[in-house]
């Protein structure tokens, strides 16, 4: 990757990297069979073609992007999946082999339970820590950033995260509050004064916790990461390069919380706009760095507080969309494929968000009518979805097949469609999930 490359060349380089995959040592990946290699390459190409919308792929691609379903399917509790990394990895592998989607998204969803414990993570409740063993982790919404802290965030987002925000959401990072002001470390004279905090017990305790947390994260990834490599050798590519967020959601989800951000729109709208401007380049950088590190082009952007019903059209256009659009365009410029998920309904937003360059993004669609989405956003973006959780959970395989068939008719005739679930799901009838994949393969041939 050279800086002189155009955005399209950077993106093409990432896709070509996917098509000639390497193992972790940097040697060409050894597939388990010629069939696996063929399947892998066809799947990458099928996704790439569907996303770029220039021609038709061989058939409509199909994938499953679940929440805790793979582990529930294995008969495990969420708690087991979070604490037993080996079982977590094995269950995910079996899930992919049993359901046979074109592309897989990794066994990362449960995450390392022990790690959250070490850091005393307060932002979420997880099994054994606020929710039952068979429940998915859930966010504890709150005002983790106070209204009077906007200026601190705007002036120095990184400093604000280190000194204020992180110690609030991770109990064990309390010592971060005492860390020095790093840009003040300039010259030899009295430079040692800046380092006094590192000699103090609370800071040392925080670093002790960080060493432990780091070791645990490493232990987890050394079991979960190789799943992607092994599945690739069996013909199942991973395309997920990382994630980023809409600046409005950065504020509204985990800094100010829903109540805080909604009040801010009236009480301090200028601060909200300024904070989002400050966050935008960071959110772009986060996505690009992550795609470069993983070699995977797709950068996931879960969309939350801009869905139908949350904001008026005017508020969406003023507060939500401009910086999200900037993030999306910035990612495209950096050679990534932005992958927003329009969680909930997005009907009222389609006319606004369709204003994007053609063939550069893929949108996961949840409750929005796919025919409406195709007529608008779908003219410029590949759509992925939207088999409902309720249908996967409570419907019959025949109903699922009929739903997929209709999706292909209304949204897939001229390409630009990937069949998948519409929302992240924990529970489903396995035969329904199978029916989704099989129906796409059967009805989706062009």
């Amino acid at each position, binding site marked *: 990757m050279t800086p002189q490359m155009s955005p399209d060349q950077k993106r093409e380089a990432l896709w070509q990297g996917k098509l000639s995959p390497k193992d972790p040592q940097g040697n060409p990946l050894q597939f388990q069979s010629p069939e696996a290699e063929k399947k892998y390459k066809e799947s990458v190409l099928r996704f790439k073609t569907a996303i770029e919308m220039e021609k038709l792929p061989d058939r409509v691609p199909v994938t499953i992007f679940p929440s805790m379903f793979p582990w529930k399917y294995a008969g495990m509790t969420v708690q087991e999946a979070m604490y037993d990394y080996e079982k977590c990895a094995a269950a995910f592998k079996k899930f992919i082999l049993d359901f046979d989607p074109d592309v897989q998204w990794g066994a990362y969803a449960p995450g390392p339970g022990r790690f959250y414990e070490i850091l005393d993570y307060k932002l979420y409740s997880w099994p054994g820590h*606020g929710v039952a063993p068979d*429940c998915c982790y859930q966010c504890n919404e709150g005002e983790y950033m106070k209204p009077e802290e906007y200026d601190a965030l705007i002036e120095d987002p990184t400093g604000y995260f280190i000194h204020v925000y992180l110690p609030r959401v991770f109990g064990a990072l309390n010592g971060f509050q005492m860390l020095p002001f790093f840009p003040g470390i300039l010259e030899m004279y009295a430079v040692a004064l800046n380092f006094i905090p590192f000699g103090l017990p609370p800071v040392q305790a925080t670093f002790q916790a960080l060493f432990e947390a780091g070791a645990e994260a490493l232990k987890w990834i050394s079991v979960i990461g190789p799943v992607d490599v092994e599945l690739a050798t069996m013909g199942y590519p991973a395309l997920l390069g990382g994630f980023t967020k809409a600046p409005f959601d950065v504020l509204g989800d985990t800094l100010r919380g829903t109540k805080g951000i909604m009040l801010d*729109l009236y*009480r301090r709208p200028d601060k909200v706009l300024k904070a989002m401007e400050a966050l935008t380049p960071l959110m772009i950088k986060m996505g690009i760095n992550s795609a470069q590190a993983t070699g995977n082009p797709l950068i996931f952007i879960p969309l939350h507080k801009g869905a139908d019903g949350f904001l008026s059209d005017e508020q969406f256009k003023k507060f939500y969309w401009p910086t999200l659009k900037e993030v999306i365009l910035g990612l495209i410029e950096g050679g990534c494929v932005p992958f927003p998920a329009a969680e909930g309904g997005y009907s009222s937003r389609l006319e606004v968000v369709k204003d994007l360059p053609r063939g550069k993004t893929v949108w996961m669609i949840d409750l929005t009518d796919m025919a409406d989405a195709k007529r608008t956003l779908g003219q410029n973006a590949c759509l992925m979805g939207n088999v409902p*959780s309720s249908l996967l959970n*409570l419907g019959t395989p025949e109903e699922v097949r009929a739903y997929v068939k209709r999706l292909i008719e209304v949204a897939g005739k001229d390409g630009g469609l990937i069949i998948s679930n519409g929302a992240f799901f924990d529970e489903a009838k396995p035969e329904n999930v199978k029916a989704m994949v099989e129906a796409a393969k059967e009805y989706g041939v062009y």
Partner: protein
Amino acid sequence: MSEQELIQAIADMREEEAVQMVRDMMAHDVKPAAILDAVRKAMDIIGERYEKGVYFLPELILAGEIMSQIVEILKPKLVESPEIKRYGRVVIGTVKGDIHDIGKNIVTFMLDANGFEVLDLGVDVPPEKFVEAVREFQPQVVGLSGFLTLAFDSMRETIQALERAGLRDKVKVMIGGGSVDEHVRAYTGADAFGKDAVAGVALAKKWIGVQ
């Protein structure tokens, strides 16, 4: 300064102005009951604007904040809470295992704005707690909220618990949230599902017989 101006200020989200008006009215010995009446009328307008798609979450949340600030100012002078005409009672909560509350809070706000007495049981509410609330509060309507797919089972368990307690035919049950639809309604045994807060209010009105 008139009650009409206060109603407008609240309904138009002029927070500081509205709160200052209440302080001034109290200084001029306007009766707290008259102020509360104005607040209620403003909430009616806010509810209507939400139903029409003019107002959304920011306005509902801000309205709640304005209302609690006003009540705080009135409190020392409120001898008794004024009689408010209520159409009926609703018990509402997010079902067991699920701690999502945004949707439930909007429905609660809208039911309240539409003249229902609402008992909000909060989040992660076990079936027994719903049963107990139905027995004691005697609502005509029970609203079950849930965002996760896991909530489908919790909703079903809650309705079965109402059945076992002999209370199922005393209430109408509506469900909502996440991907709740007709499939989920049939599975849980609820009487109806609502796609949004407006639908929830319409169901409660229909069942209780409010025009």
